[in-house]
């Protein structure tokens, strides 16, 4: 008999070291690029140097003569088999979804668009042979800016569509029945703040470039891909190519980061698929960093017109948002939906009585946009948090005080917002109070006043960002109402091996998030097994056939709940077996401290391992009991979860050069119950770094011909450790009421919160100069110009009151 007097140490909440780290850090693991198969060919892809042109001549013939080349083909060669890249989220009935061939056939619409492919015995030969391909382009007019694209007689990105408008999507609280009319609110307002903000285009700079291997050998075609979404990819391959779903296997081996940039079904995956089919041999394509930057999808790129109405006491009375969202030249898997995800978050943590949102998606001759960490929610949070600071300045009110007057109080949860969402739980007061204490808010305000008084060359600014976000994408019914092409459930299954070891299979697909560690902690607690005795399997449609993958801070919030339910089912299946072994009534057993115990006699215990051995031998099972503990659960969340927090940033701005230095940064986040505090902290540090990067450093920009000017890390500035501040992070913990563990989600929080905190701090430093905005990224020259323009535009003493 096994005894288990002292139960195992609880794993959930413990700062366990990551199981994945040794192999990921040393690189002794399977990245897609590491895969080599017998007879494998290497692909090289020729890309368009033109942003918009007709292909008048394309001959791959000379490339076929080059040494080592086995095959070469153009879009025209495969026009009838390559299909069109799928978009799973046309947000309105009349959303324009243009044809999107993986290899351009007649026309190219952005620089970097694939036009031909070479398959050769080795990578160098494939690259060399590209130079032999003959292509002639007839240039077509290029349109890059969104307002230009919507102007009359603008050049058309897709001539056959007759318009550059992709869709217009609206929400109005009057129609939704959740609030009043924004026009009336504006007419009645004592103060109206109108601002235009530009969300610059960003490049998801994941560490591992995208890579794909396709093996057509045998009956089932296998694709390995550096993707976040193996399950969705499999479905899309089947739907687009017509190959039956069960004949396609997709594997996402270890994947080196994504940030939404690998939430995509890529032309390169389809090109490799077609190449493998045509040659009958395994093929591999790995892109270069320049390829990633030029043709992998970008993020953000929106123009936001914000109208915020309020009373002079600071009470907000209405919010109107008009958005232009750059789609790029084509629609990726969720391109149109990204700004719509933001639609529900502009009202943020505040009690707006009236809200209207309108977004128009626009085609331009640029690389498509799509999900990038936060996807719609950072943009929304930025606009509202910037506007709230502007309102505070307008009212000469402390920005935190203004927020206090308008936010949802902790006793008001659950709270249904003007944007129709029901916020589950939160305590904005507690997080803000803690952040102010750690930050030394009052002392910094005093120092700021002193520097202003003395006319210090270096001015101090304090930026506030209080945010919430919707995590755990998503309740399937909600996705359906938004015309998304899939549900939002997640699946987990648990296999208990004869020796009591456990395999957890998840439908989520990690690419750096630590699922193996966190899922082990959850399963260990649920089943009473050791952390080390759990193996987490993922990312292979053969072993985990059911799942919707990883994005939108959903893995723990949705997949973690599925795992808890699957574990509960294991326990229920083990219960009659344990009762049989203990010779008692199943109803008299409780599963506590990792074992079944008879109520009142806690010494006698049977573990899951005892039960699994009994199941394996099946020599002595109770009548009618199935000899298996294996269980499976699919969880469809009833609601999103809503983490929140308060981020405070102090910047020092050199008014002579425009250089910004972040002096201190405090983040107090409430992500519900935490499974592993180290992982949460890592997510926040990385997220904050990415948000700071948007505020200060990163911007993808094109020249007038549509050439990407920031095609390498020389010009696209990703900050490194020396460029980032020390971050003070702390947490409050308000459990998610709808989640079995109380967990909310943390993957995007840092990115969402940090950008407005930094820009608010910069503008706050410069308010005495009359500066009301600095466009992102707030590079030194832009800060310098903002000061200079404000000085020139507004002579001293004439600043707006």
């Amino acid at each position: 008999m096994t005894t288990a007097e002292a139960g195992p140490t609880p794993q959930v909440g413990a700062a366990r070291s990551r199981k994945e780290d040794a192999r990921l850090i040393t690189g002794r693991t399977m990245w897609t690029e590491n895969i080599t198969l017998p007879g494998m060919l290497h692909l090289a892809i020729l890309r368009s140097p033109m942003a918009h042109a007709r292909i008048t001549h394309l001959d791959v013939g000379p490339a076929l003569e080059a040494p080592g080349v086995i095959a070469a083909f153009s879009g025209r060669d495969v026009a009838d088999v390559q299909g069109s890249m799928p978009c799973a989220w046309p947000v309105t009935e009349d959303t324009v979804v243009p044809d999107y061939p993986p290899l351009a056939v007649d026309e190219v619409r952005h620089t970097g668009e694939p036009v031909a492919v070479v398959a050769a015995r080795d990578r160098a030969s494939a690259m060399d042979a590209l130079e032999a391909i003959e292509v002639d382009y007839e240039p077509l007019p290029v349109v890059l800016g969104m307002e230009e694209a919507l102007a009359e007689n603008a050049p058309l990105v897709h001539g056959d569509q007759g318009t550059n408008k992709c869709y217009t999507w609206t929400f109005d609280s009057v129609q939704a029945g959740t609030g009043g009319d924004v026009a009336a609110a504006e007419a009645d307002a004592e103060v109206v703040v109108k601002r235009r903000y530009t969300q610059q285009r960003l490049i998801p700079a994941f560490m591992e470039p995208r890579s794909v291997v396709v093996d057509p050998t045998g009956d089932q075609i296998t694709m390995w891909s550096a993707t976040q979404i193996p399950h969705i990819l499999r479905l899309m391959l089947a739907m687009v190519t017509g190959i039956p779903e069960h004949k396609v296997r997709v594997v996402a081996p270890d994947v080196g980061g994504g940030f939404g940039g690998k939430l995509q079904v890529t032309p390169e995956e389809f090109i490799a698929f077609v190449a493998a089919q045509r040659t009958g041999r395994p093929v591999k394509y790995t892109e270069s960093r320049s390829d990633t930057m030029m043709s992998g999808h970008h993020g953000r790129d929106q123009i936001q017109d914000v109208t915020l109405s309020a009373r002079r006491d600071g009470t907000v009375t209405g919010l109107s948002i008009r958005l232009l969202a750059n789609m790029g030249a084509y629609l990726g898997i969720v391109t149109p939906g990204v700004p719509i995800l933001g639609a529900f978050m502009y009202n943020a943590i505040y009690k707006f009585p009236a809200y209207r949102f309108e977004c128009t998606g626009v085609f331009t001759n640029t690389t498509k946009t799509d999900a990038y960490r936060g996807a719609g929610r950072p943009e929304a949070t930025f606009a509202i948090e910037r506007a709230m600071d502007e309102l505070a300045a307008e009212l000469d009110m402390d920005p935190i005080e203004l927020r206090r007057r308008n936010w949802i109080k902790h006793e008001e949860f659950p709270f249904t917002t003007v944007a129709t969402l029901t916020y589950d739980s939160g305590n904005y007061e507690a997080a803000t109070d803690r952040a102010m204490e750690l930050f030394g808010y009052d002392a910094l305000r005093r120092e700021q006043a002193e520097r202003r008084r003395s006319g210090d060359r270096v001015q101090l600014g304090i930026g506030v960002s209080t945010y919430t976000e919707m995590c755990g994408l998503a309740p399937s019914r909600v996705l359906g109402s938004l015309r998304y092409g899939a549900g939002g459930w997640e699946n987990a299954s648990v296999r208990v091996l004869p020796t009591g070891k456990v395999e957890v299979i998840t439908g989520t697909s990690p690419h750096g998030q630590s699922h193996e560690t966190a899922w082990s902690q959850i399963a260990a607690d649920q089943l009473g097994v050791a952390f080390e005795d759990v193996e987490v399997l993922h990312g292979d449609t053969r072993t985990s056939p059911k799942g919707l993958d990883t994005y939108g801070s959903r893995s723990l919030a949705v997949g973690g709940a599925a795992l808890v339910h699957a574990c509960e089912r294991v326990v229920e299946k083990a219960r009659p077996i344990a009762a049989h072994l203990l010779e008692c009534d199943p109803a008299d057993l409780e599963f506590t401290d990792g074992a079944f115990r008879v109520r009142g006699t806690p010494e006698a215990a049977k573990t899951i391992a005892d039960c699994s051995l009994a199941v394996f031998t099946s020599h002595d099972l109770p009548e009618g009991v199935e000899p298996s503990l294996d269980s499976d659960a699919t969880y469809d969340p009833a609601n999103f979860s809503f983490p929140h927090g308060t981020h405070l940033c102090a910047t020092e701005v050199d008014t002579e050069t425009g250089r910004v230095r972040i002096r201190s940064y405090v983040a107090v986040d409430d992500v519900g119950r935490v499974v592993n505090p180290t992982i949460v902290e890592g997510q926040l540090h990385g997220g904050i770094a990415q948000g700071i990067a948007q505020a200060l450093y990163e911007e993808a920009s094109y020249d007038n011909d549509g050439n990407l000017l920031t095609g390498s890390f020389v010009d696209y500035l990703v900050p490194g450790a020396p460029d980032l501040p020390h971050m003070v992070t702390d947490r409050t913990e308000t459990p998610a009421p709808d989640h079995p563990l109380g967990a909310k989600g943390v993957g995007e929080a840092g990115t969402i919160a940090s950008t407005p905190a930094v820009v608010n701090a910069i503008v706050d430093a410069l308010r005495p100069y009359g500066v009301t905005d600095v466009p992102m990224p707030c590079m030194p020259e832009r800060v310098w110009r903002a000061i200079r323009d404000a000085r020139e535009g507004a002579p001293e003493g004439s600043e707006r009151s």
Partner: protein
Amino acid sequence: MIPAQFEYARPSSVQEAVRALAEAGEDAKVLAGGQSLIPMLRMRLAVPSTVIDLGGVSDMRGVRDDGDALAIGAMTTYADVIRDPMVREHAPLVVQATETVADRQVRHMGTFGGALAHADPAGDMPSVALALDMMFDIEGPGGRRAVPAGEFFVDYFTSALSPDEILVSVRVPKLPGWGTHYEKFNRVAQAWAIVGVAAAVRRSGDTIEKARIALTNMGPTPVRARGVEEALAGAPATAEALASAAARADEGTAPTGDVSASSEYRSYLATVLTRRAVAAAAGIPQDG
């Protein structure tokens, strides 16, 4: 991201290197630390017929005392330059500027001479070479010659080196009694300078006796700020005199614009950074 095919030679002495270069003809490229050339090869921006790798030429590495100067072998890595006690003692400006170059990994591969021969006006070493009046020892089929820094930089990525010549070492004058400072302005730590200022100043009591100031990334070559130097010579070592002198920093410069800074802003920055660099080099307190 794979270079086009090329022939490869790895000589083990300067003489062998010069001979290999002569044999390879005009389309050859000399590989030092590879921190600029390798990316250009990989992007196929450079397509040389032959790459002559100087990594095996051991007598081109190291620092030697040469009386009034230090002779730094062209193949000495940045990291070795920073660590060298003689450089630390006699050429603190070189150490300070070198510490700002890119990142640790680059500094362990990149070489002092490679950076100079590359003649990138955005590089930090060329302006430091100008400010310190370094002397370049060059070897070719015709033998050895010496070129002063002021004549070495000809245009963008173009130096006084003939296609058949190799930069062997650089003599850095010891400047006893001079104060120096490198003021680099960039957006992230590992980026090239938007503008950089290398300043060497000799004070005599309350007067600035002589100043040598060179600017990074203010035109097709590193450029001396002659106007500032003139204005400072014999000027009082005060913030006011310095400010009016530094206002001339952009005279004779031709900066370009890019995604990080316009030419107008670069011109303005040059004046601010020159003032700061000279103040630091000469120990002149600044307001604010």
